[in-house]
Structure formats: C-alpha cells, structure tokens
C-alpha cells in the first residue's frame, strides 16, 4: 500500500506532528497552500489540542489561513441569511448544496473550508419566480453572450450564475443536480423527497447520504481538479462523521447509490478516499461496492487517474503521468456530460466561433478607444 501524503496524515492522525522536523513542516506548509487546507489543518490541530507542537515561527501561516476562513465563513452565512429572506417572500425555501450545505447542516466538513460561491437548489417550476425575486433584491445575472446563455438554459442544471451587486459573492441556482444531458443524471424527485431541515440552522439540505453522493458526483464527473484534494477531504470527513453517528449509514449509502443509479461514482469515491485518506470503510461495504466497479482494465486506469489528480496539487505529490490523467478525465467528463450530437457542435462553437466573436469584440473596443 502506498504511503498517504503528508497533508492527509496531518488531517487524519494529527498526533503525528509531534515528531516532525523543520523539513517536514516546510513541505507541509507548501502542500497546505497548494491544496488550500491550512485552515482545516489548524482547526484539526486546535481541536486535538496540538497547537503547541507547531513551531513558533511557522504558526502564523496557519493562523492567517484560519482568519481568511473565518472571513469567508461569515460572508457565506450572511449571504445565506439574505438569500433565505429574499426567497421567503415568494414562499420558496432553497435547498443549500455543497459548501453552503455543509454549513446548513453543521457538518464537520465546513470547518476550515474556503467558499468560492453559494449553491442552492430550487425546484424547476419555481425557478422563474425565484429568479425574479432575486433580481428585485439586488442579485444580477452575469453577462453572457447569446450562445452561452442559451446553452445554460437549454442543457445545464443551473441558470447562469448570479451575484449580488453590493456583495459580489457568486450564487449558483440549480434546478437539477447534474447537467440535463448527463449520462449520470440524478433523479431530482427522489432527492427532493429526502431533503432534510436542520433543527439547528433552520435551513434545508440534502440528506446525509445524498450530500455524500452529490459531492462525489461533483468531484468525480468534473474536468477540473485543482481543488480535488480539498473536496476529497470534505468527503473523507463526511464519511467518518456520518458513519460514526449512525451505524446504518454505510448500508443506507450503498442502497441509495443503487437507487439513484450512481453506484460507479460511489465506488470511485470510496476507493479514492481510502487510498488518499485511509478512510475506514468496513470490509463488507468494500465487497458490496466492488459490484459497481467497471472491467478490470478500466478500473485500473480510472483509479490511477483519480489517484493522480486528487493528491495535493504540489510537486512533492503529483506523479509524472498527471497530464495524461488530466486529459483522460477531461475527455471522460465531457463524454459523460453530453451526448455526441450536442458535444460536437458545442466544442466546435467553443473552439472556433467563441474566439472569433471575442476577437471581433476586442477589435471594436480598440476602435472605440481610439476614437474616444
């Protein structure tokens, strides 16, 4: 078994830092910056009362990262509050997804995590009134060209991203959880039936099993993995927390994945968590999910690719074949997201027509600037 990266070791067995020398810390801080997880590490060390073992001249890196996390956290909580108020007027209660979802349900996975945007789900029949309501309350849609706009509306699982004109945080409003064209489209109705209301926060999120599956789908069907290690760490934390709280969790997770027809994704997710974070997964669960694995060769290729891209994005971790892995996963992501008759025109547009219109626009702008 390969040794897990230094960053995973700190997150899962924090006592290990007691024996670390300067050189190990030097590497850890570099990995921490590259993966954006210094704040989470600080939180783990603080909970375990191990902060005194961080060398004095190094601790500011953690403290600063933690300050940044706190600022992000307060901003997201404020945004969630404003958002709920705005939608409440129309009698709509959003379901918070991903990062905001972790906050809404008070999962451990929000600790020390930075948030780039807020994601919410609103049933498709209420999208129009929600969008109207948000616009009245100061949210604006980002300007897109006609092609992108219609592409979003026709094929995507979300409306074009919005942001509040005073605060600027991006808001993604979803009406489905995977692109409508995706080969792994999740049945929204099934998800909606299991939505839970948090007693603590009064916000709605997906059920614990669905939170895991949704995050796994997002991570593993995507084509961009620069924050892959962080997202996998979220999953590791969720799996540990949920299985600790509820002894039926593993069983429920596997049968839910089967029910939603995303067993393969769950298989990749659990195997990657186990490889990189040594997430404790019971043997019988491993046996069960192996039923979802693809043929031997594909299995080997996929697990190797995921392993490469989900490690911390730093020289000390990434293997030589990282570019190949990224390319394979990029193609796979597009293949899964869109059938050929949509994908090919889309790629054609993006590689020839978009650059041309951009160039045209630039020319016009320079002309105008010269005139001005």
């Amino acid at each position, binding site marked *: 078994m390969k040794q897990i990266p230094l960053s995973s070791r700190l997150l899962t067995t924090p006592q290990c830092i007691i024996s670390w*020398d*300067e*050189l190990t*810390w*030097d590497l850890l*801080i*570099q*990995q921490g*910056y*590259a993966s954006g997880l210094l704040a989470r590490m600080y939180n783990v060390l603080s909970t375990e009362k191990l902060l005194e073992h961080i*060398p004095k*001249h*190094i601790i*500011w*890196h953690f*403290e*600063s*990262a933690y*300050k*940044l996390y*706190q*600022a992000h956290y*307060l901003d997201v909580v404020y945004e969630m509050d404003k958002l709920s108020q705005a939608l409440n007027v129309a009698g709509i209660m959003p379901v918070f997804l991903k990062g905001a979802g972790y906050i809404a349900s008070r999962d451990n996975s929000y600790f020390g995590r930075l948030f780039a945007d807020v994601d919410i789900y609103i049933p498709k029949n209420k999208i129009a009134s929600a969008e109207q309501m948000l616009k009245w309350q100061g949210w604006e849609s980002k300007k897109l060209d006609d092609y992108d706009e219609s592409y979003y509306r026709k094929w995507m699982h979300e409306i074009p991203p919005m942001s509040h004109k005073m605060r600027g945080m991006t808001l993604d409003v979803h009406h489905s959880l995977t692109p409508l064209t995706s080969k792994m489209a999740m049945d929204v109705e099934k998800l909606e039936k299991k939505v839970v209301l948090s007693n603590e926060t009064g916000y709605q999120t997906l059920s614990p099993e669905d939170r895991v599956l949704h995050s796994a789908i997002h991570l593993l069907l995507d084509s961009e993995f620069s924050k892959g290690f962080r997202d996998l760490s979220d999953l590791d934390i969720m799996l540990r927390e949920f299985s600790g709280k509820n002894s039926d969790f593993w069983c429920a997770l596997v049968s839910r994945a089967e029910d939603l027809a995303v067993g393969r994704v769950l298989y990749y997710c659990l195997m990657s968590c186990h490889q990189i974070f040594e997430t404790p997964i019971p043997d019988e669960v491993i046996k069960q999910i192996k039923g979802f694995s693809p043929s031997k060769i594909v299995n080997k290729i996929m697990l190797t690719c995921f392993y490469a891209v989900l490690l911390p*994005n*730093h*020289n000390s971790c990434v293997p030589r074949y990282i570019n190949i892995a990224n390319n394979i996963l990029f193609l796979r992501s597009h293949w899964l997201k869109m059938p050929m008759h949509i994908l090919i025109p889309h790629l054609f547009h993006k590689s020839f027509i978009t650059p041309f219109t951009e160039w045209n626009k630039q020319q016009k702008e320079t002309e105008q600037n010269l005139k001005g």
Partner: protein
Amino acid sequence: MRLADLNKTELAKRLNHQGVCFFAGGFSVCLNSKVPAIVDGLLSQYGNNLLNEADFSDFHINIKATSGVRRFIRPRVQFFLNGNAPFYPMPYTQAFPLLEWGMNWCVTNHCHEHLVIHAAVVEKNGKAIILPGTPGSGKSTLCAALANTSGWRLLSDELAIYNYKSQMLVPNPRPVSLKNQSIDVIKKFAPSSIFSPTVHDTIKGSVAHMMPSIESIEGTNNDAVPAFVVFPKYIAESNSELELVSKGDAFIQLAEHSFNYQILHSDGFEAIASLLDQTNCYKYTYDGDLAVAINQMESLVCL
C-alpha cells in the same frame, strides 16, 4: 552568512538546484530560477541579506521562463509559489521586478495575523511615520529620500505591517521600487546608493530598485512605534506643507489602503482604531523639493 558571500557562479548554481534560501524583509524565501536577471538582481539588491540556514522557508518561489514556441519570438517569465502560478507571464526582461511584485503579493495575500496597509514606513528617533499613498502621490520618492538620510531607517516602501496585538509596526525592509521620473531624482539625490538596472515598459512604466541601507536590514527584528500617519500628495509648484487630518478621515483612508481590513472583520476595525490612538495624522502636499520635505519630516520626529 550573507548573500554577498556567495560568488556569482555559486549563487547561480544554487538558484538552479537546491534554491537560495534567504531573509527578504521579515520573511524567509527559498528561491529557484534559471533566469540570469534574477542572479544579477539578487547580487545587486540583496547582498546584505542573511542566508537562511534553517530547513524551513515561508515562501518557495520559482521564476521560470515559459516554454512553447513563443519563447523564441517573445520570451516571457512566470512567477510560481509552491508550484502554482498566480499571475500571467511577463516579458523576460522584467524578471526581477516580477520577483519583487510577487514577493509583495506573498505577504499581502497570506499575512493576516497583522493589518497590512499599502504604505511606506520610515523611522527616526524611535518614531515611525506611515506614508500611505496611491501611485503618483510621491510616496516612494519621499520614502527613498528619507531612507538615504542619516538617522532614518526603512521599514518598508510598500507594505506597512501593523501588529495590532503588540501595537507595533513590523519591519519588512526590501529594495525600494522607484518608477519613471523618480528613478533619476533619487539617483541624483543619493548617488552612492545601489540601484538595479532600470527595466522599461512594465505595466508601471520604467522601474528600478534601490538597495536599503545595511542599518535598515539589520533592524529587521526591531519593531517600531507608530507615531505619525502622513498622506503625501505630490503637486508641482505647490507649497510644501503639513496639514492636520481628522482621525475619522484618516480611518477611512487607512481602511481603503489596507489589503486585509475586510478579512480581519472586527479585528481590522480595532486595529486601525488602536493605530490612530497612537498617531497624529497629516496631509502633506509637497512640490518635490526633497531637502524641504526631509526637513519637514525631521521636524515631526524631533519634537
């Protein structure tokens, strides 16, 4: 051991392989680069800086030439921190200014245990003057002139780092960045100072760096007491005069000039408040006559 104790070949070799680890201002940097301008820049500007013998460095930086066909026509360099590139590549000739800007970015983007303000800081008689300023305000010119006047030490030409827990200013003495006309002005004012070669056509125009005095570098670990906030404003053919600014006005300006006021939330508010409790604030219009300006700054710290 100081950086100047390495000869050029040894320095270039280290930059190429294990990296050169040294103290740049208040932070330790481990630098790799194969770009010759970086070797020259380091030798010209960082000779007095101590090498870091420890295994830990705050920032691992690499300045690399970009690959691809383009390098034969218009070669460019890129700044990497921990292997990730936060900026677009820049022309090859601008490697040293890129390193300097990148190191500033490292501080403003990662140092949130202190309030970081876009300002120059100089000190005399145990009293530090913070000079916040927008580009063109004459902040760097004034700072460079003071840094070359005996009795003054440079804390920073760009970043005032205020430790709001100890209520002291943390020095970060690094080469002073001079732009356009002020390069010749300071070369005339302080001909014995050491300047890096001028690089033209950067996004900020022509840029040259000036080495800080050895006293400034040796004072890196001595925090300073903030005594004045002076907002300089260069206006040709004006009267050089200091004018009191209200604390409320100064607060808003400092918040605008700080990089992490919003990240610090309520701590940021408390930080500026405690900084203003210790300082008198002035608006300073000056016509570019450095002798007069130095006298006026001296009169502040000699009271």
